[in-house]
């Protein structure tokens, strides 16, 4: 259960499976937990195929696999256990809880919470300050999120970086 720590404050588990490292850009203070899969070599591109902002927390067994477009993840983003991300853009201050699937070309704007087990279909755009839950066709719902979550998500991401 050991981590490699970089000078910019990133913590990367030795069990994480990272491929195509030249195509992955990680800003600072990010945590990549055990068994996280980052596939930066699914296609070649001049710009990085996976980009992580600062204070991102990738929990155990989560997987980031760009399919056709690069995956850009903003700052203060928390991605939960067993979540798979193929989406193109995740903005700043987003919490994606465990067991979620974020499909290709979907866009998640600022200050969103994606609840446990949610499936976000292809090309869906989640507006800012939204709480998303459920599976399309069953119980999929997008609700408004209170503006105070902007501060709370940022604190949550920073705390996770400190507390692990």
């Amino acid at each position, binding site marked *: 259960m050991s981590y490699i720590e970089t000078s910019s404050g990133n913590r990367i588990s030795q069990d994480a499976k990272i491929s195509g490292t030249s195509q992955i850009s990680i800003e600072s203070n990010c945590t990549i937990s055990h068994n996280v899969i980052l596939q930066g070599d699914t296609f070649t591109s001049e710009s990085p195929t996976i980009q992580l902002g600062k204070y991102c927390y990738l929990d155990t067994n989560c997987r980031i696999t760009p399919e056709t477009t690069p995956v850009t993840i903003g700052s203060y983003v928390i991605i939960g256990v067993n979540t798979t991300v193929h989406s193109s853009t995740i903005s700043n201050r987003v919490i994606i809880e465990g067991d979620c699937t974020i499909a290709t070309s979907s866009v998640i704007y600022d200050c969103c919470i994606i609840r446990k087990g949610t499936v976000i279909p292809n090309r869906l755009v*989640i507006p800012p300050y939204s709480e998303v839950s459920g599976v399309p066709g069953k119980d999929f719902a997008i609700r408004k999120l209170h503006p105070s*979550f902007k*501060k*709370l998500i940022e604190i949550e991401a*920073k705390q996770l*970086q400190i507390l692990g």
Partner: protein
Amino acid sequence: MSLIYNDSRIYCSDTPFDPNNINTNLTFPLSHLFFCPICQEPRATHQTSYDIESKFCANCLTDYSNNKNLTHCIKNCFECPDCHANLSITMTDHDNKGKSFNFNCVYCEYSYVTSVIYKPKSLHAIVDDEKRANPDSFHQLCDAIRKGVLGPEEEKSPVSKNIELMLQQTRRQEQTPTPPTELDLTIKSYPQARKLTTKTSHRCCKCHNLVLAYANDKTQPTINKFAVKFSAVDYLPTISISNLFNGEKFSSQVLKKWNGTTILMIHLINPMSVKCTVNISIPSSYNVAPEVNCKITIPLNQVTLGPTSTNLIKTIPSCFLTSNTPTGKRELILRKGDVMHKPPASFEEVEENLNNFVERGINWYSIPVIINLDGSNTFNFRLPVYITLKSELPDVLKKIPGHDALSVGYWNVIDLGSVSLV
């Protein structure tokens, strides 16, 4: 320690709070509340009135703020009527320059093909025309009701006419009952236009003071800048509960087996840049559940919390610190010293020297509470705490006339989850 995943909720209602019968529908997490600076009270969304300031389609980012009657996007943003995923639209050419459009859901198997059109029309007009030309039973009833209301005859009131129409429809359905599968086939689902996203300003219902307003920035609709924002998380202390010693994680989701008496830790964290005095009042005894009596002992009723700091780790109570990261471990050693390596104190030891287990930090206090439960039952345990907060006015509130100091009183309900007495 999480401010988002917190089991503490605040009671927001005009009806008086009853600790013996807590109405959970009127308790809200701190993160979901506004704070009215005039009334100096937390306000739930239902205690505010709202105005739509702007609206836009999140898919194509078109601003519809000037079109008051629109609720759906009028461009080519369609969603599946079954699963709300996006629809991909393709065009097929036909003879005599005719065209038809295919809508396919990107997630489920839904698809819809329009009839062949020969004159240019918007996709919305095409779908609307087809809806009107081939209405299903539901839309037929809607049309009949619309005609009933707008019809010229004045003998009966529109309401009684509509009731009559609905009763006729119900009678018809009762007389010829159709199996549900057949009924489903008759309902034709059309592509739906995407709903617009709104930005709303909120006002306190009591004093009509603005508690949330967006800045008038129309450069990009997805950017949210606030001109006025009074959130409860910025003024009221965060109250959370944990086990007495760190290491064991407290969860309200897990069934707890207690043998009558237990000791927990209540944490109070000040979010403001000024110090505040917090008074905690817990009902000394109340009925938690039928045939279960509860007695609570707290060693300290009034605490003074210092102003918050930009150094985040100093604002985290010791009970929540972990040794998972070098920063966390360093802070834990700094605060606990060699106590960290000693076995935890016994229950009797804590009970006798309760005051010694009170911990304080830069903007927080951790207070142990002894909970005595009498009965034999499994129940959902909610701990009501009355909080009185007094402080100087923070800089943001100084601009608002009417008050010289901040003084708030409210009920906070801490959900401890299911408890089984053994």
